[in-house]
C-alpha cells in the first residue's frame, strides 16, 4: 500500500485511533455479552443445584 | 342483601424475586364476617393484605369487591376500605388529632370533635394534641385504630393490630372488630398469634 494511505493526508493521528477504538468497542461488546450470558448460566445452574425442585 | 356486599379473592400468586410468596391464595368474606389470617412470619400475610388493599398488583389472580374486580374502580373500592398497616403510619411532627384530620379528612368530611370522640373510644383522648413522636408504641397503635374507626368504611384490613398493645388494648381491639362485624362490616385481620373473635369469625392459615 502506498505511503500516502498510512498518512491519511496528514490526519493519521486522528483517523487510525478512531478505527482502532471502534474495533475495541465492537470487541468489548462481544466479550461482555458472552461473559454476561455465561454468568447468567452459572447463576441458573447454581440455583438449580440448590433446589432441584425448581417449581414452575 | 348483606351477603352480596363482599370480598372475593381468587388464586393470588406473588413472587418476591426468587421466592414464590403467595401460591394461589383464595378467600371470601361477606358482610358481618371477620377472617383471621394466621401463619408464621414470612408466609406472605402482609403481602396478601397489600394485594387485597390494591397497593400491590399480584402476578396472577384477582381481588373483587361487591362482585367487581377492584382494578376497574380502584377509587370507589378505596373509599370503602380502611387499611391499618403494620406500622401505625403517623407523622411524628403532627399531633394525634392532626394526623387524623389529614388522613381521615381525605375520605370524609369530619370535624375535630368527632375525631376526638374516636380517640376517646380507643383510650388516647389525653394525647390528642401531643406530637405523635412523643407517644408510646401502644398509644400510636390506638391512634391508628381511632383512624380506622373514623373512616367508617365497611371493609377493615388490619395488619397485626394487636402489636404493642397491653391486655386491655387487645380486648378493646377484639371488641371493636366484633362491633364492626355486628353492624354488617367486614374485617380481615392478620395476626401471627391466635385470637378469639366471637360472631362469624373464620380463620385462614397460610402454611
Amino acid at each position: 500500500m502506498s505511503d500516502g494511505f498510512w498518512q491519511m493526508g496528514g490526519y493519521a493521528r486522528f483517523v487510525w485511533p478512531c478505527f482502532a477504538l471502534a474495533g475495541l468497542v465492537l470487541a468489548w461488546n462481544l466479550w461482555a455479552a458472552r461473559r454476561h450470558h455465561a454468568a447468567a448460566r452459572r447463576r441458573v445452574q447454581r440455583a438449580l443445584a440448590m433446589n432441584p425442585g425448581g417449581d414452575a | 342483601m348483606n351477603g352480596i356486599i363482599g370480598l372475593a379473592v381468587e388464586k393470588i400468586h406473588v413472587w418476591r424475586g426468587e421466592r414464590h410468596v403467595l401460591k394461589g391464595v383464595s378467600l371470601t368474606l361477606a358482610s358481618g364476617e371477620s377472617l383471621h389470617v394466621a401463619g408464621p412470619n414470612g408466609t406472605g400475610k402482609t403481602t396478601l393484605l397489600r394485594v387485597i388493599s390494591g397497593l400491590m398488583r399480584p402476578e396472577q389472580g384477582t381481588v373483587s369487591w361487591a362482585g367487581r374486580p377492584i382494578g376497574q374502580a380502584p377509587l370507589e373500592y378505596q373509599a370503602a376500605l380502611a387499611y391499618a398497616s403494620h406500622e401505625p403510619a403517623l407523622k411524628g411532627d403532627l399531633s394525634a388529632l392532626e394526623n387524623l384530620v389529614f388522613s381521615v379528612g381525605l375520605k370524609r368530611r369530619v370535624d375535630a370533635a368527632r375525631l376526638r370522640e374516636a380517640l376517646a373510644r380507643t383510650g388516647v383522648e389525653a394525647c390528642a394534641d401531643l406530637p405523635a413522636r412523643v407517644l408510646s408504641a401502644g398509644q400510636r397503635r390506638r391512634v391508628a385504630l381511632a383512624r380506622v374507626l373514623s373512616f367508617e368504611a365497611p371493609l377493615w384490613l388490619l395488619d397485626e393490630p394487636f402489636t404493642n398493645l397491653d391486655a386491655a388494648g387487645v380486648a378493646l381491639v377484639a371488641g371493636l372488630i366484633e362491633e364492626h362485624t355486628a353492624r354488617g362490616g367486614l374485617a380481615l385481620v392478620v395476626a401471627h398469634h391466635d385470637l378469639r373473635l366471637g360472631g362469624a369469625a373464620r380463620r385462614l392459615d397460610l402454611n
Partner: protein
Amino acid sequence: MWTWFYRLASPPSVYRIAAVATPWLLAGALLAIAYGTIDGLAFAPPDYQQGDAFRIIYVHAPSAWLSLFGYMVMAVTGAIGLIWRIKMGYAVAAASAPIGASFTVLALVTGSLWGRPMWGTYWAWDPRLTSELILLFLYVGVMSLRSAFEDPARGDRAAALLAVVGVVNVPIIHYSVQWWNSLHQGATVAKMGKPEMPGSMLWPLLSMMLGFMLFYAAVLSMRVRGEVLNRERQSAWVRAAVE
C-alpha cells in the same frame, strides 16, 4: 388475536431464536463492516474541505446513530414491559442499555477526534457532541437506577419508566442545546453532519451503517439470552436450556 405476539415474546422461544440468529447477524455485520472500512479508508475520495480526516465519519456516524437507536429500543421495550407487563420487554431493555452506552462513548471520542483538526481542541461544545454527552448521562442514569434495587423486577420497572421519561426529553435536550449553541457561534463552520456525498463516499457509509446495525442486533440477542435466564430462573424450561 395477540397469541402470535405472546408466543413470540415467550422466553423459551426468544431464547432459541436468539441463539439461532446470533451467528448469522454477526457474520453479516463483520462482512459489511469489513467492506465499509476498506472501501471507506482506501477507495473513497478525500473530502475537498477536510481531506482524509472526513473518513472518521465511517465510524462516527454509525456509532452516533446506534447510541440513539439503542436508547429508543430501551425505552420502547421498557414501555412494553410496563404497559403489558411482558417480562421479555424488560429483558431486551436491560440488554440494550450497555450496548447503546458503549456506542455513545465511541461516538463521543470519534467526534472529538474528528473535531480536533477543525476546532484546534478536542472539545469545543459542538451541539451534536454535547447532546451525545447528555445522552450518555441518561444511559448512566438508567443503568444505575436499575442496579440500585435489590429486587430485579422493581429495578426493571423503575429503569423502564426513567427510560421513557428520558426518551421524551431527548428531543427537548437536543433542540435546547442547538438553540444554546446558536447563541454564540452561529451555525458551526464545518458541517458535522453528512455532507452531500458522491456515491463512492456514500456506499461505504451505508455499508458501515448496515454493519453496525447488524452488530447491534447480534450483541443484543446474545445479551437478551443472558437477561432472560436471569429473569426466568424458576421456570422449568430453563433447566433444559442450561444443561
